[in-house]
């Protein structure tokens, strides 16, 4: 359960990226996450809510962009999505594979409410 620490990291990145006077306008933080990042989105959202609760960022929530785990076979260059954790090339059966995506854990963008936006 390291999602609390991760949530803290996300909060720090948001605080570094958004001007102080706009921090209360943060509504949504888009997080890109891969299945092999070791992070459970639901737990991360729970922890994030726990740390922003009753702060000026309490209207903010996380939005997840979940990526598939994709492998590239170094032998035959076949590119495919992992199913059932089978780390073998589905074209040639080779095991010399590289992970193209799946480990991501990134803050992509932050959405802010602006004056004039409907009740948010």
């Amino acid at each position: 359960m390291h999602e609390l620490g991760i949530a803290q990291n996300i909060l720090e990145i948001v605080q570094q990226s958004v001007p102080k006077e706009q921090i209360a306008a943060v509504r949504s933080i888009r997080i890109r996450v891969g299945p092999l990042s070791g992070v459970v989105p639901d737990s991360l959202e729970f922890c994030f809510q726990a740390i922003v609760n009753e702060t000026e960022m309490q209207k903010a929530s996380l939005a997840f962009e979940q990526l598939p785990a994709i492998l590239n076979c170094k032998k035959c260059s076949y590119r495919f999505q992992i199913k059932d954790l089978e780390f073998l090339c589905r074209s040639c059966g080779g095991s010399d594979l590289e992970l193209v995506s799946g480990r991501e854990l990134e803050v992509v963008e932050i959405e802010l409410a602006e004056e004039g936006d409907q009740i948010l």
Partner: protein
Amino acid sequence: MSVITIERKVLEKNDQIASRNRRLFSDRGIYVLNLVSSPGAGKTSLLEKTFQELQGSMGIAVIEGDVQTDLDAQRVARYGVPVIQIVTLGGCHLEAGLVQDALGNLDLKGVNLLFIENVGNLVCPASYDLGEAAKVVILSTTEGDDKPLKYPAMFLNSSVLIVNKIDLMPYLKCDLNVLKSNALRVNPALKIFETSCFTGAGIPEWCDWLRRKDASGQ
């Protein structure tokens, strides 16, 4: 609504410090292994057996990570090995910054092999680079042969798998072949050792591998 695009890795701070640690290790010619496992799989016992087998032939130091107590550091210190204990006070994994701080309190003179014994946990330590050359995952037979499939990130991110407590095989339902094939399904490049820290089985092979790593200066 307005949008600020940032595209930053959530763990970038950790990764930057890990890179600094890695540079320091490389400058000093220290080969660093990050030992990961669930609690009680035998990380500290493996270290004790390793010290006995190597008998001072390699310059070893240890960074111990635990939620509480310095019991593991005490065990390591009995072998005359320089050790520093990190107590995470509830933290479920080590981070690169904790290792960086610990390095400031550890005499690295003459050290060419550093073990970082992570907090016992098969989930969280997989996400944190500490600056190590490789992760070594220790899985004991009592945990069952399905664990590589249940905790894939740890096995995927490790270079070596040590299957420990093989002396208990006669009493368990765990199938060693199934365990190994499950591990290789997740990571076909895993180097596997089978050990018992009770009988000493497999320890010479593991230590030979360590000596070769040292000789190759990797």
